[in-house]
């Protein structure tokens, strides 16, 4: 049980809740949150709600959330002094390099809508990163990002329901991009970065069932350094036309990998346990099933089966 220090409305339907206590975690991780109902069988909701870590403030951990359905609406009605139940931190977040290592990399953070929430700790870590924030009407948290980075000009905002934040972004200028936002935005970004090739996508989309429960696999430990190393390794793979047999599935889609930046995306799936036990949040990746709550929510773009990231 944790005490709410503040629960302020930043904009229509957008709240910032600060919860007292030493709630740790990594950037991109999340907590399972519920109002304190003593775990009653008959109070709404049954399942806790996954909410990303937005900030570690002086008074406690901060969550930035949108009133989406009833669970978040209930949260928004809680007042300072009331309690929430938090479990976490859960999941695998954005890659963390220490400042010395990362300062030579050109990094961009791209957030769409509520997707900006988990990016603030990332901006606070990679203070030289460029930050692209997309909104469709209501703008929030921009000042936090401006404070996080070295120069406030690093933060660019697109606030237009009909235009994408991606218009602001030249992906070729970056070594690494970390993003969170609607599935459509993430897909467009992956395409822009050269991660989606329509033909090979279909091949990779074949259902790969092996080691669906595999424990933390190699890609999880991959860091930006490795990504660049990989890119150097790959030469003329562009000419390799993937064939339809099964063994070819293990061949990465290497088209245009030379130019493309490393891309990390944080994705959303409905969850029950939040900690890796129930397999309701599983996504298909190119290496088999992965749990969004455990191996995710942050995945490397080349892992994601983009055509399946549609409805939750």
């Amino acid at each position, binding site marked *: 049980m944790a005490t709410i220090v503040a629960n302020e409305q930043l904009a229509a339907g957008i709240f910032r809740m600060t919860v007292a206590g030493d709630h740790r975690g990594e950037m991109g991780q999340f907590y399972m949150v519920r109002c304190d109902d003593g*775990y009653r*069988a008959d109070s709404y909701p049954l399942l*806790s709600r996954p909410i990303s870590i937005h900030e570690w403030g002086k008074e406690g951990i901060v969550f930035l959330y949108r009133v989406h359905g009833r669970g978040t609406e209930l949260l928004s009605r809680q007042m300072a002094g009331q309690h929430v139940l938090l479990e976490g931190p859960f999941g695998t977040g954005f890659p963390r390099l220490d400042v010395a290592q990362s300062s030579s990399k050109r990094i961009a953070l791209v957030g769409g809508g509520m997707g900006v929430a988990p990016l603030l700790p990332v901006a606070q870590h990679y203070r030289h990163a460029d930050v692209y924030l997309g909104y469709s009407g209501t703008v929030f948290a921009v000042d936090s990002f401006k404070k996080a980075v070295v120069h406030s000009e690093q933060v660019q905002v697109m606030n237009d329901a009909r235009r994408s934040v991606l218009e602001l972004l030249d992906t070729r200028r970056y070594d690494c991009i970390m993003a969170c936002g609607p599935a459509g935005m993430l897909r467009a970004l992956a395409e822009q970065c050269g991660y989606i090739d329509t033909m090979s996508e279909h091949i990779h989309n074949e259902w790969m069932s092996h080691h*669906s429960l595999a424990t933390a696999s190699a890609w999880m430990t991959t860091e930006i350094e490795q990504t660049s190393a990989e890119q150097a390794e790959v030469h003329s793979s562009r000419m390799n036309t993937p064939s339809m047999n099964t063994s070819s599935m293990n061949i990465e889609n290497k088209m245009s990998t030379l130019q493309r930046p490393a891309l990390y995306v944080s994705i959303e799936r409905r969850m*029950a*346990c939040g900690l890796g*036990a129930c*397999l309701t949040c599983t996504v298909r990746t190119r290496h088999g099933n992965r749990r969004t709550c455990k191996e995710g929510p942050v995945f490397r773009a080349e892992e994601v089966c983009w055509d399946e990231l549609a409805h939750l």
Partner: protein
Amino acid sequence: MSLLTCNIGGISLRNPIIMASGTFGFGREYAQQYDVSVLGGICGKGLTLEPRAGNAGCRVQETAAGMLNSVGLENPGIAAFLADELDEMAALGPCVIANLGGANEDEYVKGARQLTADYHRRQRAGRRGVEMIELNISCPNVKQGGIQFGVDTAMARPIVRAVRAATDLPLMVKLSPNAQQIVEMALMCEQEGADAVSLVNTFSAMKIDIQRRRSYFDNGYAGLSGPAIKPIALRMVHQVAHAVQIPVVGMGGISSVEDAIEFIMAGAEAVQVGTHNFVNIRAGKMLVEGLEQWMRAQGIASLAEIRGIV
């Protein structure tokens, strides 16, 4: 300690609180949250002979006081389980129960044999292994196997018989609330030599996305669990426990010490807790401790005093 002990198929559990299959993984993740050694037992995620990727599309939806799941028996297969998961699971402490699914008799039998052979191998080496098989003839989320066996006693009988012949491990058969005649089904299991029955698995159920004009689930139907089903599950457990002599393990929406006691008073030897693990991550510990407190407060020396009292 003996306050809470109970017995299933010759295996003594330190207490009647068992984590339900599919809701507790193989114990590892919850073990990082609390000391799971306090539990009576853990039913691992449903296993099949071969690995299964499970169902595509949406896998979970909330309903009023319940949830629908359509995981579809995603699992690494028995071989991978034995190789990669079992050592760690057995080290946790509680009784290790393997939940066995299958698409046909052959798969069930081969799976049971594999689990049993592994048990004996480990025993010879002085190591713990799978101590009980929970035969899942009742998963509503897989198109092939599972559910058909679970509804029709005549179809289920050969499976139970064959698996019984294939293993000398204690055998608990998990019944479906979708069974046409659940009491008859339980009696069949008893006749075929099952050591226990557990019930209920999830109810076949549905939720429609009226915007998209389709079921939320690619499979159409999904499995309902949680507090919503408790009154029905309790009735079924009461019926079955009053019909068979073998132990009955009750479950369905248990979310509090009082709920667990209701099932025991209805005749359950032990109980399983599924969905409530998602509500309260430390549900197992809370139930074990709470049950013990309640027994002491009521001056009850053993569960037998209240079991089946209603």
